């Protein structure tokens, strides 16, 4: 059948599928679903920050003179910019008592002011006692504090000019790092969306097969058109969902994070082109993986079979994602180019490339290549469907079966 007729028929199928999905009540849940974890993320994010703020830093009791303690605490304050992820161990001075052993014991078991350990014996012969790891963070920090304090005790700060700082916008190291990050973010977005949305295509032909509509369809239009229509109907539905989610996401970022999108590292092709590529490569990835799923799902005759198939199919997506992420950071490596050539991982690999390299022509090439494969997979899927489900044409045989038959 001629191509325009196939496309016309596919449009009729797609229109039916799209309206049947979008106008159903369940579609509302579909739209709201991904917003639940985002909302939860905000709530728990808030709780987490609260917990973090409430937690006081670990403290060590220092049994020493005021002078020694001031030197130690000054040393701690000078070193504290290095402890960016977790604050350095806090110090708390206690006046020495006549019985050091009893005092140590009392401090270590005190419930009112819990401490990690006790430091005694002045800067000259310091001794740390505590329930910590021998070479752990606390012990190392205490050693550093003591060494720093001793240095200052002997040699006060020498005057001189402070380090002059000149800020450049980027350096090659920072750009590569940032683009790497954007590449991975792009791939992850693509992966999450595809894994969320493409699985639905597995069950797309179950309805027609169970209520026998397939006979009406197959008698009127080519099976190619049925597959094509179903694929694009689901893509359109997914894009409706993505539009809603990104709008909600963008609104959330605009409300909760000042300067939001601007603070993300810029991709090589620039933001507008990169967002366009994400949309384009999502569509391609959806069409490629979706066409494969449609073909696999079309072989299943019950919902049970589809459910059984969905796990291995999801795992294969994880493998594809892994394959594509091998090449991130090295866009010209064999891994990256291989992932771009292998049709099912090609959109993932290419979205990473868009973040890393400014050249646009490889994208044109990749898109043509991917479209070609969508057509090929659809043709193959519909041919297998006709052969094995509709039982059309001569039965397919393995070569050895052919020999047996002709013998």
């Amino acid at each position, binding site marked *: 059948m001629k191509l325009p007729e196939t496309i016309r028929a596919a449009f*009729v199928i797609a229109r039916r599928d799209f309206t049947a999905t979008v106008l159903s009540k369940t579609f509302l849940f579909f739209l709201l679903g991904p917003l639940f974890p985002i909302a939860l993320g905000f709530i728990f994010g808030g709780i987490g920050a609260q917990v973090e703020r409430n937690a006081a830093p670990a403290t060590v009791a220092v049994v020493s003179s005021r002078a020694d303690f001031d030197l130690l605490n000054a040393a701690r304050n000078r070193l504290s910019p290095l402890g960016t992820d977790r604050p350095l161990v806090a110090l708390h001075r206690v006046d020495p008592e006549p019985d050091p052993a009893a005092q140590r014991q009392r401090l270590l078991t005190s419930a009112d002011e819990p401490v990690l350990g006790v430091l005694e014996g002045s800067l000259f012969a310091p001794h740390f006692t505590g329930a910590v790891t021998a070479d752990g963070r606390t012990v190392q920090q205490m050693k550093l504090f003591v060494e720093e304090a001793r240095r200052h005790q002997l040699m006060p700060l020498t005057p001189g000019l402070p380090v002059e700082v000149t800020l450049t916008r980027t350096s090659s190291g920072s750009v590569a790092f940032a683009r790497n990050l954007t590449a991975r973010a792009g791939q992850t977005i693509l992966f999450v969306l595809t894994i969320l949305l493409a699985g639905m295509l597995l069950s797309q032909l179950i*309805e027609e097969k169970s209520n026998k509509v397939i006979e009406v369809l197959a008698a*009127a239009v080519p099976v190619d058109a049925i597959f094509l229509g179903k694929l694009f109907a689901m893509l359109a539905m997914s894009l409706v969902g993505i539009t809603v989610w990104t709008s909600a996401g963008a609104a959330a970022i605009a409300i909760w994070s000042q300067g939001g999108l601007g603070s993300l590292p810029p991709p090589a092709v620039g933001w507008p082109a990169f967002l366009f590529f994400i949309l384009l490569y999502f569509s391609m990835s959806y069409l490629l993986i979706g066409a494969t799923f449609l073909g696999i799902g079309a072989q299943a005759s019950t919902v049970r079979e589809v459910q059984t198939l969905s796990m291995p199919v999801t795992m294969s997506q994880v493998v594809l994602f892994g394959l594509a992420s091998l090449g991130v950071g090295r866009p010209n490596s064999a891994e990256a180019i291989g992932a771009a050539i292998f049709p099912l991982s090609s959109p993932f690999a290419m979205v990473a490339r868009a973040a890393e390299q400014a050249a646009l022509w490889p994208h044109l090439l990749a898109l043509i290549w991917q479209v070609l494969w969508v057509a090929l997979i659809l043709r193959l899927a519909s041919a297998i469907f006709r052969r094995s489900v509709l039982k059309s044409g001569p039965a397919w045989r393995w070569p050895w079966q052919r020999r047996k038959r002709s013998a």
Partner: protein
Amino acid sequence: MGERAIAAEARDLVKDFDGKRAVDGVSLTVPYGSITGILGPNGAGKTTCLRMMLGIIDPTSGSRTLLGRERPLEAAREVGYLPEERGLYPAMPCAEAIAFMGALRGLPIAEGRRRAIELLRDRGHEDWAKRPIRTLSKGMAQTVQLLGTIIHRPKLIVLDEPFSGLDALNQEKLEQLIRDQAAAGVTVIFSTHVIAHAERLCERVAIIAEGKAAFEGAVDEARSKLRPIVHLRTRAEDGPWRAALPESAKKLGGEWRFELPASGPEPLLKALIDGNAGIETLSIERPGLHDAFIAIAGEAAARAMGHATAGQEAA
């Protein structure tokens, strides 16, 4: 039949399913504007033949043409098809379902919706238009699907077991619809396992039994394969007149039944009168399609048709 153009033709269609032959060399010719019945017991291969002719499946070997096209799907816009297993989307409103079936075959959706309402109104069912299919009874859903089959005004309609599942009233309505379509110049092919429908409607029949076409041609031609049947009751039990009866004559409940000998009724009558048979009743009947079916397809196939072979649809 050479003077009429051919709407559909099958030549030596063969279909194997998993190594088992379902259809074994069926040939079929359907002239334009005719009503053709495909007759045979369940599982004889009727549906498979129709599916091959429509291009839903490809034959293992053999060829077919549909409205002059080698690839049947290219004629899809001019063909209507009611499958044996009816299928509609349960959530679709009736008018939408009818319009959708038209759209599949190239009718613009807006025009389809307009015609769907019109068709439903003509039958007094305008209240169905917005009701989802799932709220309809089986018979109602079948009516909707039938309307969807003719919505795009096809030149050829293929109906697979259209009468099954319908009550007597709706069967009559369907017969009328088939006659109306044929009167409007539409070619109709339908399959049935009920001989009475074929006998009442068809101009041509194909008798399919065990995957083979046992007969294909005009209904009259099928009947003329059999000689007229003589039913005779006599007062005399025996006599020289018995020699005039053919050897195959059978006596059932006091009535002789046999094929009219080739020499015709006159020598028979003369022998009966001269031999003092004492004729009580004598009738010479043209064989029905049912008798022809038994003669052509065999007793086994006739038995497979079950109670329906009585010539009346009991359901």
